[in-house]
């Protein structure tokens, strides 16, 4: 009976791991439709010394296969691939890289997409609902190998998301 109980515990743990991957939130909650002003501060320099710690903004769709797949669809539907191709860049910079100009963490990506950036990145805030921005971010992160392999979107013909393709990649930085 001891083995039985242990077996159930192991199963429950594995169950929880699978929960996030197979999550399918088809109806976004109303709060996710609004657009937040910004998620990440670009500079730690502030007048008046450090202030209370900022809340960490996490991507609610981390590790969720359905949302990464939706992100892939939206990446093409909203024509991100027009400038960024399938992550390799063209008119715009590549999205598979180690060093991000404005930061590669999900909060930074959120800011970039929502507020736009100089030299051509449009400000999508107010146009794309927030939940879709997060889905696109999940997809971009998956292109960089930052999402669990089992949840990652289908491989694309043009660029293989293989660790060897990401130069000097630091492993194990998933959120």
């Amino acid at each position, binding site marked *: 009976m001891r083995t039985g109980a242990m077996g159930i515990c192991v199963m429950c743990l594995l169950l929880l791991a699978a929960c996030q991957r197979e999550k399918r939130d*088809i*109806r*976004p909650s*109303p709060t996710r*439709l*609004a657009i937040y002003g910004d998620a990440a501060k670009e500079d730690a320099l502030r007048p008046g010394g450090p202030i209370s710690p900022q809340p960490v903004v996490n991507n609610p769709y981390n590790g969720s296969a359905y949302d990464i797949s939706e992100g892939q*669809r939206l990446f093409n*539907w*909203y*024509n991100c691939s027009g400038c960024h191709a399938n992550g390799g860049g063209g008119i715009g910079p590549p999205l598979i890289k180690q060093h991000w100009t404005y930061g590669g963490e999900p909060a930074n990506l959120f800011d970039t997409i929502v507020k736009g950036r100089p030299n051509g990145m449009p400000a999508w805030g107010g*146009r*794309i*609902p927030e*939940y*879709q921005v997060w889905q696109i971010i999940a997809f971009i992160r998956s292109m960089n190998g930052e999402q669990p392999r089992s949840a990652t979107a289908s491989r694309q013909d043009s660029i293989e998301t293989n660790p060897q393709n990401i130069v000097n990649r630091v492993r194990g930085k998933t959120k």
Partner: protein
Amino acid sequence: MKNNTRQIFSTFAGVLGVACLSLLISCAGHQQSAVDPAGPQSGRIDTLWWSFFWLLGAIFVIVMVLTLMTLGRRHRGFEQEPLEATHKPSEETDSRLRRIIAGATVTTVVILFVLIVASVGTGKANSELQNKKNPLTIQVTGNQWWWQLEYMNSDPTKILVTANEMHIPVGRPVQIRGISNDVIHSFWVPNLNGKRDLIPSHVTTQWMEADHPGVFRGQCAEFCGLQHAHMAIWVIAEPEDKFDAWMRAQLQPAAGPSTPELQRGRQVFMNNACVYCHEIQGTTAAGQNGPDLTHFGSRRGIAANTVPNTAGNLAGWILDPQSLKPGNHMATIALNSTDLQPLVEYLESLK
């Protein structure tokens, strides 16, 4: 044993009776029905169906009567031989039975041959449609979960792009050129003809013709994902002159907004994510991901005919697409009422 036999007979008769009754009751109601033909192809298929039905039904009854007769002693037709000891009757009985079985087998072969000839003949007759003159070619693109329709024309300015509602002229053959943008779908309007799959990386062809005016419903018939159940199409057959008038109206770009309210509505459309997916000819909205909305106000249904096209339904659809069709690809956009109302009015004005 006798009681048992009677019980079996009566139950069998009862089941057969229920079956017939349900058949008769439910023959009423002909929307999207394969046995309510509105064109020559579906007419031939309907005739073929009823021929099969009566012939095979008669065969079924004969087989069942013979099977049930095995239970009654007096219907055996052979002398009661001492089977208890040997477990087999005489050689003469056996060879007689074998001859009967051989005869039944030959009859089966003949009947099946007749059915094969009838089927192949019907198929050939139905494909004769493609030899008729002056077909109307419509390219149907299956998407998750809506139908894009393009009325082909050698003059590119006369190619009509619309969605989810197809008008066809009565008496003219229509060639459906089927492709798919994502997964396998199947174009099926039972009143007019059988179905044809729309397979990505293939082009499939189907022909149909309506022989009287009417409104016919079709539905996707190949499982295509979450909202396969809500992917319907209206095919409206109308006389040639009405069809031409419809085409001319549909080829026009969208009417410009004539009141400030409608102008506000168009502005809301342009300022939101709508333009990323939808096209309205005559405006700068040129999204290709979703259905063309140039003449949305003239269509009967919303969301691949999941609900009728009324202002209330449209408002509900725009505010929360996931409630009507959970899992579909339309973005959920937060609009407040000062934006929503003009937008709905504007879209309904696009006749």
